[in-house]
């Protein structure tokens, strides 16, 4: 504000402290450090070649898709531990509908999306009606959905993987929105210019090694932009912050807290469904073990992104960067030839550091001692 109205009792705060209260700061710093680190450690390994970039950006995009849903839900003050099971369940439903029941793939996808968002709404409804912590309710759904995901294919096909989705999806307009690639002509052109390597032998000789951007990455970018826009630019975004910050205070101010929370559970399920559909279209099959531990990976990405576990504070951009750090480190360690089990050690340390930093930032914001 203008200096004329400045109160002498208001202490000037350093720009650093001001920047610290932005939720994205930690993840921006983390992203820079991670890229510098692998820039030195694994530059010659092909990590930053077009193929390498495609590799880690695809992995990061997977994390991003579920992190956006988990982020908005966490800011609204709730958790969803059923994300991983929802991914397995959604994929299996698409495969059962399209392969076993022979439905057109686009109908299978639509029905699965409706079914999964309805299950998300059920999650939210139970949390709201019972007043139980969402941690427990969605933990129950983690087991319920995983159980069905293993039970159904065994009942119908006597196996836990259903294949043949690729054949069924061939030429399907909706399937290509999840499993297709974008910008092929551009990549051919780039290869002609010599900017991208081409295959030298084999059946694809002469084609560029990277022949398009997977739809998965576009979904991730689209969801991040959508989530960030809703959270920061709309009235509904203010309601999300308010519902998570203090649901009772928000209710007294006339915010429809129950509706906000249930919608966020539905959005989390929607994101899991996007992830599952992309995965099924890419692999051409659905497996009963798909999506294992994804709920924790989503939550970790969100926390690295600066959101508070207690709700009311966070950023979608931060969560997206958290997912990027996640993907780059996981694939980077592979490129650098580091034992992959160390990734988990790193992840644990990173999570702990992020939570400690977030708690400290919370104290700055709220002025607690």
């Amino acid at each position, binding site marked *: *504000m203008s200096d004329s109205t400045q109160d002498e009792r208001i202490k000037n705060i350093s720009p650093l402290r001001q920047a610290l209260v932005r939720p994205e700061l930690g993840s921006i710093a983390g992203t820079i450090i991670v890229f510098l680190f692998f820039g030195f450690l694994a530059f010659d390994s092909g990590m930053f070649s077009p193929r390498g970039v495609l590799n880690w950006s695809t992995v990061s995009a997977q994390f991003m898709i579920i992190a956006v849903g988990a982020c908005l839900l966490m800011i609204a003050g709730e958790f969803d531990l059923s994300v991983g099971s929802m991914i397995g369940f959604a994929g299996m439903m698409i495969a059962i509908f399209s392969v076993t029941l022979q439905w057109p793939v686009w109908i299978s996808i639509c029905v699965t999306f409706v079914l999964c968002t309805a299950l998300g709404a059920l999650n939210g409804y139970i949390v709201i009606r019972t007043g139980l912590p969402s941690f427990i309710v969605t933990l129950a759904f983690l087991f319920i959905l995983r159980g069905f995901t293993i039970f159904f294919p065994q009942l119908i096909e006597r196996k836990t993987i259903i294949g043949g989705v690729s054949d069924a999806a061939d030429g399907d307009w909706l399937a290509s929105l999840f499993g297709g690639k974008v910008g092929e002509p551009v990549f051919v052109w780039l290869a002609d210019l010599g900017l991208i390597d081409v295959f030298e032998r084999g059946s694809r000789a002469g084609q560029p090694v990277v022949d398009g951007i997977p739809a998965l990455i576009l979904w991730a970018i689209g969801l991040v932009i959508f989530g960030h826009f809703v959270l920061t630019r709309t*009235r509904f*975004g203010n309601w999300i912050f*308010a519902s998570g910050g*203090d649901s009772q205070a928000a209710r007294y101010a006339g915010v429809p807290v129950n509706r906000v929370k249930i919608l966020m559970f539905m959005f989390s399920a929607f994101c899991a469904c996007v992830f599952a559909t992309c995965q099924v279209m890419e692999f051409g099959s659905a497996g009963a073990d798909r999506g294992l531990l994804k709920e924790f990976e989503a939550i970790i990405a969100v926390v690295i992104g600066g959101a508070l576990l207690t709700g009311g504070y966070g950023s979608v951009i931060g969560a997206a960067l958290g997912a990027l750090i996640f993907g780059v480190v996981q694939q980077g360690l592979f490129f650098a030839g580091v034992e992959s089990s160390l990734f988990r050690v790193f992840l644990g340390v990173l999570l702990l550091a992020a939570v400690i930093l977030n708690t400290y930032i919370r104290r700055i914001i709220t*002025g607690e001692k």
Partner: protein
Amino acid sequence: MDPLFEMQDVEKHFGTVIALGGVNFSVSEGECHCLLGDNGAGKSTLIKTMSGVHAPTSGRLLMRGQEVRFEDPRQAISQGIATVYQDLAMIPLMSVSRNFFMGNEPIKRRFGFNLFDHERADKVTMDEMRKMGINLRGPHQAVGTLSGGERQTVAIARAVYFGAKVLILDEPTSALGVRQTANVLATVDRVRKNGIAVVFITHNVRHALAVGDRFTVLNRGKTLGTANKGEITPEELQDLMAGGQELVELESSLGGTV
């Protein structure tokens, strides 16, 4: 002056517990009516009945002489009855501007979307805060950095800005320091002079006497009577709140309204 808001023989039972057993209370425009009661006297239940959280078991609520019934807090707010709760007024992690417009966000239409008009929200927030004598670093300062008194003031400013006719303040000065209390009481005085009816709920007799025009004591779920300013001493109010052992002796000083 005719009362703006009135409660007549209001009772509220929770199962076999009689939380309110006959409350008579009224407040007029530009008046600060203090409602005093010790812990457990039924203050919270009374506030929630006034603000639409609870429906009364029996008795009548009147707004400008017309009987009203509130199904939920939103209906009370739309009638101009706003409540500022002691702890639940603000959300500490959110900015002052986002808090100020919580539930009433200003909208601008862009590309077919209803967007949160942050520019307008920020400007109004700064203007209203300046009127209340609070200097903010900026509209994006988190409410958590404000003092308890400032938070109450922001909440009062918000209620007034959104058209409160009757302002219910739930223990606005408890847990505040001397200076902050003085600021909040000054705010109450300013709001009253703008013609708003203030219901000031407290258990602090001194704070009540500092701004109150009338005083009503609530004890064991019943109103014991109303006294005008200057008709009652702090000691008498204190005794009434404490349980009314000297009720008989005080009856005369309350003007026979018991």
